[in-house]
C-alpha cells in the first residue's frame, strides 16, 4: 500500500438512520409474534413425549421423530374409533368439492343475471341477500335444522353441502356481480344482437371471461369450507364429520395422558390444506378476502 494516500476504511457510511432501524425492528418483532405459534407447533410435533415432559417449549428437538405425525394421520382416536385424522381429511374433501362447485356456480349465475338482466324483483332479492351476511349463523340454526330435515338434508353429506352453499350465497353472488359489472356492456349487447339467449350468452361470452374471479372465488370458498367447524358439527352427521370437528374431538375428549406432540401434528395437518392454498396462491388469496370484505 502506497504511503500517503488516504484510503477510506470501513464500510461506506449509509443513510440508515435510527428511524429506519426502528421500522425494521418493529416489523421483525411483529413477524416473530406471527411466526411463534407455527414454530412451536412444528417443534412440538417433532418431539417425543419424554422430551416434551421435560419442558423447553422453544428448545430444538434433540431426538426428532415423525412418529406423532404418523400416529395423528393413521391411528389417533376420536371417541371409540382409532383410524386417525385421515377419516376427517377425506370427509372434508368430499364436503368441500361439491360445496365449492355448487356455491360458485350459483354465485356466477346470480351475478350474471343481476348485472345484465332486468328482472323486476332482482334488486330487492340482492339487497336482502346482502343483509343476510349480517344475520348471525345461530339465528338460523333452528329453522335450518327443521327445513333441512324436512328435505332429508340433515345429518348427511347432502345436508352439510346444502348448508355450506346457503351460507356462501351472499359472498359468492356479490363477488361475481361486482366482477361482471366491471366488464364492458357492449360485449353483452353484441351477443344479444346476434340473438343469443340467457344461457347461451353466459356460456359463450361470460364464462370464458370469468377465469380470474373463478380462481378468487375458489380459493375463498375452499378455504372457508375447510375451516368451518360449527356447520359440520351440526349438519354433517356422525359419518361425515369434517377434519376440524374430528381434530377438536380428538384433542378435547382425550382420556389419560395427553399426547401433545400428536395433537400438534394433527393441528398442523388440519391447517395444511388452507396454508398450502395460501402460500401457493399469494396475491389471489388477498384479492379474495379484499373482494369479500368490501361489503358496505
Amino acid at each position, binding site marked *: 500500500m502506497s504511503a500517503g494516500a488516504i484510503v477510506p476504511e470501513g464500510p461506506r457510511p449509509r443513510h440508515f438512520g435510527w428511524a429506519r432501524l426502528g421500522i425494521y425492528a*418493529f*416489523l421483525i418483532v*411483529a*413477524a416473530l409474534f*406471527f411466526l*411463534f*405459534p*407455527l414454530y*412451536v407447533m412444528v417443534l412440538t410435533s417433532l418431539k417425543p413425549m419424554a422430551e*416434551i415432559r421435560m*419442558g*423447553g*417449549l422453544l428448545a430444538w428437538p434433540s431426538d426428532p421423530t415423525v412418529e406423532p405425525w404418523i400416529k395423528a394421520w393413521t391411528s389417533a382416536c376420536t371417541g371409540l374409533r382409532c383410524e386417525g385424522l385421515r377419516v376427517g381429511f377425506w370427509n372434508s374433501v368430499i364436503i368441500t368439492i361439491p360445496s365449492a362447485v355448487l356455491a360458485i356456480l*350459483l354465485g356466477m*349465475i*346470480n351475478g350474471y*343475471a343481476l348485472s345484465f*338482466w332486468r*328482472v323486476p324483483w*332482482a334488486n330487492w*332479492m340482492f339487497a336482502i*341477500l346482502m343483509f343476510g351476511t*349480517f*344475520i*348471525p*349463523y*345461530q*339465528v*338460523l*340454526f*333452528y*329453522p335450518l335444522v327443521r327445513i333441512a330435515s324436512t328435505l332429508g338434508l340433515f345429518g348427511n353429506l347432502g345436508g352439510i353441502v346444502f348448508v355450506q352453499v*346457503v351460507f356462501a*350465497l351472499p359472498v359468492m353472488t356479490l363477488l361475481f356481480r361486482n366482477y361482471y359489472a366491471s366488464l364492458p356492456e357492449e360485449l353483452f349487447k353484441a351477443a*344479444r344482437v346476434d*340473438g343469443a*339467449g*340467457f*344461457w347461451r350468452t353466459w356460456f359463450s361470452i361470460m364464462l370464458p371471461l370469468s377465469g380470474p374471479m373463478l380462481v378468487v372465488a375458489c380459493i375463498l370458498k375452499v378455504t372457508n369450507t*375447510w*375451516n368451518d*367447524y*360449527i356447520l359440520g358439527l351440526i349438519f354433517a352427521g356422525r359419518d361425515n364429520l369434517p377434519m*376440524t370437528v374430528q381434530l*377438536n374431538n380428538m*384433542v*378435547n375428549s382425550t382420556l389419560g395422558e395427553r399426547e401433545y406432540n400428536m*395433537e*400438534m401434528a394433527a*393441528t398442523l395437518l*388440519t*391447517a395444511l390444506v388452507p*396454508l398450502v392454498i*395460501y402460500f401457493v396462491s399469494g396475491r389471489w*388469496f*388477498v384479492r379474495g*378476502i*379484499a373482494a369479500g*370484505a368490501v361489503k*358496505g
Partner: protein
Amino acid sequence: MAGFRWKTGTVAAAIALLPTACVVLFLFVGGTGWAALVSLTSSKMLANWNFVGFQQYATLFSNPRWLTSLANMVIFGLTYIGSTLVVGFLLAIFLDQRVKGESVFRTIFLYSYATSFIVVGLVWRWIFNPGMGIQDVVRDLGFASFTFDWIVNQRMAIFTIVIAAIWHGAGLVMVIALAGIRGVDAEIWKALKVDGVPAWRAYLHVILPTVRGSILTAAVLMMIGVVRLYDLVVAMTNGGPGSATEVPAKFIVDNLFERQNIGLATAASTSLLVMLLAVIVPWLLLGNARRRSRA
C-alpha cells in the same frame, strides 16, 4: 321479434335467480321470522305454538350464564376490535415505509388468517398451558416465580382468547388498511411533505380520516365475527374456567342441541340479532351519510 327474445331471456334470468330467491325468502327472511316466533312460545325439547309472550326473554335475561356470556362478548369485542385495528393499522403504516422484503412480511402477517379457528385455539392453548407453555419457558430462564396462568384464571381467561383472535385477524386489517393507504392521492402526500408535516401527524390527522371507509369495513366484519365467536372458545377453553369464557353463540348452540331448550335458544338468538343490528345499522347509516356529504 327482438322484443320477444328479450322477454324470454328475462324469464330465463328470473328462473336462474329462483333458487337464491327461495333461500332468501324462506331461509333468511322466513327463518329469522320463524325463530323470532318460536322465541315467544313455551317450546322446550319440541317446538309448540303455545304463545307465552316475552316470558322466554324474562327467563333469558335473568339467566346468569347468559348475562356472563353477553358481558364476555362485550369485553372480547371491544378489546379484540380495538387492538386488532391498532395492530393492523400499525403493520400497514410500517409496511408503507418502502421497506425491503415487504411481500415477505405481508405473507407472514396474513398466513394465520388462512387457518381455522380450531387450529388457532389449539395452538394458543398449548402456548398458554401453565405447566409447559410460556410460563415454563420464562421460569427456565431463571425467573422462578414468574406466573402467566391467564388461561386457567377466571378473570384473565377471556384475554387469552383475545390474543389468539388478534393473531388470527390482524393480517386482515393490515390488508384492508394497506389498500386504503395506498389508495390515498399522491397529491395529498406531496402537499404534506411540502408543508413539512411529520409522518406520524400525517398518518394520524390526514391519512386515518381519509381511510375511514376501510376502518368501517374492517370493524363491521370483525363485529360479525365477534357475534359468531364459537369455534375459538370451544377449542381453547370450552367456556371455562367455570363460565369465564362463555359466549352467546355457545349459549345458543348448547341450549339448542344439548339442553334442548328451543324457546330459550331462539330468544337468545333473536336478542343477539337485535343487538347486532342496533349497533351496526346506525353505524353504517352514519358512515354512508358522511360519505355522501363529502362527495
